[in-house]
């Protein structure tokens, strides 16, 4: 139990040297934390993605700052507050916060797992529950994507980790299928010939595997033609835009 008498308080006030020491301890830990984060960024920037470095740095920074605060409290030697008591109180607070922030912790651990497994990286196009967009940030608690329309969508990491997700940018190649109907009077061979010629002229249609065009169905309104062509994952967007035209 914390009990402070007036004399204790006075003694404490006049111990300004201790206060200076505590402040110096915090300043030093802040300096160490900042130095370490810079060092980590410099050492890892070629090997580890930037967002992972940023999250590691955040963690390390706050852990060092907490250590600094603990040292400062120890130096201050506040009557009735020992380091052990502080740790016990900290542990108890952690349990309370843990229970209250279950969802947050679940997002945090999902964030760590996402960084380890790396199902996507910044710049990838993903589809989560019909939320399609480019990944712009992978945080410890949530991931932000920018939609085609330009607005930002924040998705909690635990949702991303536990649900199916499509990553459009991971594929080396992608198959694009287009179907269209031609009237029965049209010469099918000529249509196929023209399409092959067109595919051949387009840089984004891969030469190998070669495109295929075939009659898919004879319908009521005409002949259903299906064209299948492969494109590089990186050029898929250009290709689909052209197909739409």
């Amino acid at each position, binding site marked *: 139990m914390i009990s402070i008498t007036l004399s204790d308080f006075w003694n404490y006030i006049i111990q300004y040297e201790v206060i200076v020491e505590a402040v110096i301890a915090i300043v030093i830990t802040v300096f160490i934390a900042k130095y370490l984060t810079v060092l980590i960024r410099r050492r890892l920037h070629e090997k580890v993605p930037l967002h992972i470095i940023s999250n590691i740095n955040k963690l390390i920074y706050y852990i060092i700052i907490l250590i600094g605060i603990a040292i400062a409290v120890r130096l201050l030697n506040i009557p009735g507050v020992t380091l052990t008591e502080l740790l016990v109180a900290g542990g108890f607070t952690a349990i309370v916060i843990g229970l209250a922030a279950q969802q947050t912790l679940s997002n945090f651990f999902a964030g760590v797992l996402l960084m380890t497994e790396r199902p996507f990286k910044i710049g990838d196009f993903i589809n989560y529950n019909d939320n399609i967009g480019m990944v712009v940030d992978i945080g410890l608690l949530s991931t932000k994507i920018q939609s085609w329309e330009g607005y930002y969508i924040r998705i909690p990491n635990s949702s991303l980790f536990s649900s199916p997700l499509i990553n459009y940018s991971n594929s080396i190649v992608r198959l694009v299928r287009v179907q269209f109907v031609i009237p029965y009077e049209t010469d099918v061979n000529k249509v196929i010939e023209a399409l092959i010629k067109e595919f051949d002229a387009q*840089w984004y249609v891969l030469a190998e595997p070669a495109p295929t065009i075939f009659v898919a169905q004879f319908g009521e309104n005409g002949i259903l033609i299906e064209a299948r062509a492969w494109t590089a994952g990186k050029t898929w967007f250009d290709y689909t835009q052209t197909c739409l035209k």
Partner: protein
Amino acid sequence: MKQITNDVELSYSIIKEKDHIIYQKGEKKIEIPSNFIIKEFPVLSSNEAITEYFGIVFEQPIYVGEEQEVKLYVKLPLDIGIYVSDGSNYKLIDVIEIYTKKYALYGTIGEGVIYRYWKTNAYLERPIHSANEALTLIEIINKAGSIGSVSKIIFNSKFFSLYFKDEKFYGEIIRVTRLQKGLALVRPINKPTIEGAEIIPTTVSKGIGGQFEMRFGT
């Protein structure tokens, strides 16, 4: 060095102003301080934003006997690279495309690589080539215990240097070592196709390396 722009109609301009140089191609306009120069150099016709691999696809497969070596020439397409230079360093700012590019997949959908697709004839004797082509010697060494057929060669273009001699361009010799059926190693060996050719300054830093393992067949 020969002006490679002679037989190609190009739509760009380099204007020298008092204190800067303006490079303009269509809507693209780049201003450079006058202490820099703008120079044209050939670049292998590819697009590094899409792939760093270049694939030579032969019109007819090349057959190589067991423990034998075959040397042949191919003509590789060259685009025009526009570089900014301070005299010793070069930075590519634009590419004037002369050839229509095609790409293809080498390997499987899950593990393959995209390469710049270039279908060409192979020549046993040194052929005449144009200013927009780099004549390149390919050495195929068959170390596998069987007759091998080679229909394509994929190499890493980042490690491929270009050379010039007598107003013509040449590529680095590419060595293909067939180790076993379906497996070959391909690497540029840092030597020009013809003796005495000088390296193009923009490719000097490429050095030795860039071995590509063709494990899905040749």
